[in-house]
């Protein structure tokens, strides 16, 4: 399918264009008005450059928050009136959970990278059983696509896959495991690798994150819609954040449940078939994806070149360019994900996303991309760019206030003028500007509870209407506390990215371990010092202005305790106990999440050795069954004969391992042995024949001596 093949322009495209033009006016007119007001409010004797900069930055930020505001308003309209003739899920209304066409096969892809294996397989088991309940399991296959670099995790994944296969599947295989040798292009490369190997076997693929869970019903519905609408390339669901217990994660879960549906419905209202793909919890049509969505490397050097990190936005733009629609199914339930448990984990993720989004600057003008996708690229850039703009705005503001206090006022700027230029203070203008900005920021939050109350006036799933509104208020307070901290970090990320500092590929933390004081100090000390210095200078020179910026200064100065406090599960649990930030899944656990919880608590398989679950390499070297499994899983691989030099090096690793034990080996050495089945066999054989009891004990082979 291609745009040129399409005879008629679909009606949604015309509606979409009209709506977006309306949005443009809704954003631009208030932005111009407020920027003009801002310009008139500035003291006339201040520097013209500073004034211009201030107004420009203010204008961009105002437009930016206006877009968010109107997205919410669109969502409110859709959810309250229930008028949506373009609702994508219409086609499966009243249908059962069958997929009639046997060729409509779907692969569920779970790309993993050094993840918590127990959690990943609990999710797989949950999704598998849920699919089984729909009766359409035979239309789905699950692929675990591992890019894990840790040797221990690699072996653990193999064992978990094999256990799952033995316990759940019997002879019919629906869950597959593939480990890549190299991690070219990270997640997008992993998915592309799947497409090249097995993509032709499937009409659709549903992409998961390692922590995603979807009900079988939601996945069958997605396939039904895709079957019904051949013009759709991607359908994105709205994943609800669940299962976290730290304060910051619970607050985000709450915001995601209360504001998320509104925002998603609003985005759908404005974007229609030009929506964006978020990289997970979405279904994709495989054939056009393979034909049109392979990502090139960005030419040049530096952090904005090379592999495209935030691949999902670019893939959706490419899919749209090929003539396929991308829709946001905001009303399909049963799609879940987990949020980062601490502020530091969130910032670590943002660092990666920031670089990816900044790369999109280089793609904004790409030939053939739709304006909506160019706007989405810009939106992505502004998600982080707005932080730097805001920081600039505040710095310029402070500089202007300080200069006001330090320099003598000039009432006669031009000597020929007969009348002095007196400063004019227009408080009603300032107040209306402040009011309109506050309205754009906070009204959506206040209104977000409305659809919940319309659905159930007692808001039982949120602890009642009073608790719901207290939670909304506290969420606003907490985001006001956290936003300045996020602002300086995002600004730092942008500057460091633009200076060419690239990032590695870290594993996302997915448990409620919290943030220690030392971790918080290491991350926030400079923010604290910045706050003390900034606040100190402003208070010393112009104390009256200090109080205007004090909320931000206090956030900077207290960033260490804030980071620790918000990352504590005990604090999150306390708020749950008093009924605040409740989400429906905490009041009544949906069956799929109950299954996930049960699967997480499955006991570990019996082993006569004292090895922990995490000691994968040790088990592959010692435990006969794990060793045999690992060897068996390497056999189908094409085996190149290693060079004599490499052979020699690996032999030396075996000797080292036998002499000093497994802990003396680096991850690289362990991986080398795991890849070389001959050397691993040799190690296994020789470990079991170790005469020296102390050395054998290093491998977990020594039994206590008899009395």
């Amino acid at each position, binding site marked *: 399918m291609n745009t040129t093949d399409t005879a008629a322009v679909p009606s949604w495209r015309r509606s979409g264009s009209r709506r977006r033009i309306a949005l443009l006016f809704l954003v631009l007119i208030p932005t111009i008005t407020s920027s003009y007001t801002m310009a008139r409010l500035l003291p006339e004797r201040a520097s013209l450059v500073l004034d211009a900069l201030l107004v420009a930055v203010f204008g961009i930020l105002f437009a930016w928050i206006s877009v968010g505001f109107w997205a919410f308003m669109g969502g409110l309209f859709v959810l309250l009136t229930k008028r949506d003739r373009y609702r994508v899920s219409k086609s499966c209304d009243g249908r059962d959970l069958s997929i009639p066409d046997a060729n409509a096969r779907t692969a569920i892809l779970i790309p993993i990278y050094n993840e918590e294996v127990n959690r990943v397989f609990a999710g797989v088991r949950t999704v598998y059983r849920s699919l089984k309940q729909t009766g359409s399991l035979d239309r789905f*296959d699950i692929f675990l696509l591992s890019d894990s670099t840790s040797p221990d995790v690699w072996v653990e994944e193999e064992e978990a896959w094999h256990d799952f296969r033995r316990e759940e599947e019997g002879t019919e295989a629906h869950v597959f495991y593939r480990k890549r040798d190299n991690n070219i292009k990270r997640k997008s490369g992993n998915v592309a690798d799947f497409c090249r*190997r*097995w993509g*032709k076997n499937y009409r659709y693929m549903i992409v998961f994150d390692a922590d995603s869970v979807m009900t079988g019903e939601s996945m069958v519905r997605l396939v039904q819609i895709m079957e019904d609408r051949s013009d759709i390339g991607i359908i994105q669901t709205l994943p609800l954040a669940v299962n976290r217990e730290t304060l910051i994660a619970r607050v985000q879960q709450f915001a995601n449940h209360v504001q998320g549906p509104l925002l998603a419905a609003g985005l759908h209202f404005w974007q229609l078939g030009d929506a964006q793909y978020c990289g997970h919890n979405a279904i994709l049509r495989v054939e056009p994806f393979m034909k049109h969505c*392979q*990502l*090139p490397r960005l030419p040049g050097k530096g952090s904005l070149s090379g592999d495209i990190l935030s691949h999902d936005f670019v893939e959706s733009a490419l899919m749209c360019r090929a003539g396929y629609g991308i829709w946001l199914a905001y009303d399909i339930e049963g799609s879940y994900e987990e949020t980062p448990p601490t502020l530091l984990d969130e910032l670590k993720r943002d660092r990666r996303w920031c670089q990816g989004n900044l790369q999109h600057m280089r793609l904004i003008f790409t030939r053939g991309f739709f304006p909506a996708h160019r706007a989405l690229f810009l939106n992505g850039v502004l998600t982080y760019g707005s932080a730097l703009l805001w920081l600039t705005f505040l710095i310029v503001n402070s500089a202007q206030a300080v200069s006001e206090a330090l320099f003598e006022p000039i009432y006669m700027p031009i000597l020929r003028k007969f009348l002095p230029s007196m400063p004019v203070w227009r408080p009603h203008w300032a107040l209306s500007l402040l009011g309109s900005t506050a309205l754009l920021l906070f009204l959506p939050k206040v209104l977000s509870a409305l659809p919940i109350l319309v659905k159930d006036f007692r808001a039982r799933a949120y602890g009642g209407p009073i608790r719901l509104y207290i939670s909304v208020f506290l969420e606003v307070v907490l985001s006001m506390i956290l936003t300045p901290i996020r602002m300086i970090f995002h600004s730092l990320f942008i500057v460091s990215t633009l200076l060419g500092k690239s990032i590695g590929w870290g594993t996302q933390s997915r448990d409620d371990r919290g943030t220690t004081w030392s971790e918080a100090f290491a991350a926030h000390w400079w923010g604290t010092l910045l706050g003390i210095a900034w606040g100190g200078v402003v208070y010393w020179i112009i104390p009256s202005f200090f109080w205007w910026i004090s909320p931000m200064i206090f956030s900077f100065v207290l960033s260490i305790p804030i980071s620790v406090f918000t990352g504590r599960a005990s604090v999150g649990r306390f708020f749950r106990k008093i009924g605040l930030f409740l989400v429906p899944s905490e009041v009544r656990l949906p069956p799929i999440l109950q299954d996930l919880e049960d699967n997480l608590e499955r006991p570990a398989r019996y082993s006569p050795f004292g090895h922990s679950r995490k000691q994968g390499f040790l088990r592959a070297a010692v435990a006969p069954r794990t060793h045999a499994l690992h060897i*068996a899983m390497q056999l189908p691989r094409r085996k190149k004969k290693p060079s004599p030099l490499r052979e020699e090096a690996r032999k030396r690793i075996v000797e080292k391992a036998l002499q000093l034990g497994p802990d003396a080996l680096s991850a690289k050495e362990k991986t080398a042995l795991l890849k070389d089945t001959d050397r691993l066999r040799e190690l296994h054989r020789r470990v079991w024949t170790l005469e020296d009891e102390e050395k054998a004990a290093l491998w977990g082979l020594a039994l206590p*001596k008899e009395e």
Partner: protein
Amino acid sequence: MTSIRDTDRWRISRDRVLLYVRALNLPPYKGLDLAVESLKRTGPSSAAESMESLRALLKEHGLDRGVLDSEGKHLASVPPLNRSVMVPEELDRVPWRTSFVQFLRRWKNDLFGKGCAR
């Protein structure tokens, strides 16, 4: 002195062999039979000899064939390959420059191209 060392070696061999058969997750009677048999064959010898003997026994009983799937075939964690390609489409990130270059080329061809000379 020698007998104590022999006892120790015997103990180590016995423990090692028993641990191995236990880790194989064989039915208990089968595992014990194999362990006893291997120790009988080697007598009070080193762990290395006992383990070699156990391995030989496992081979004799067909228990060394590695991990097979439920149909007795080699374990495959992925389906058979069905290869195809994914080629990146061209991304013209600066279309105005491309258009300008194309315009210049066309203009150059019109003025100095072979067609004009003829």
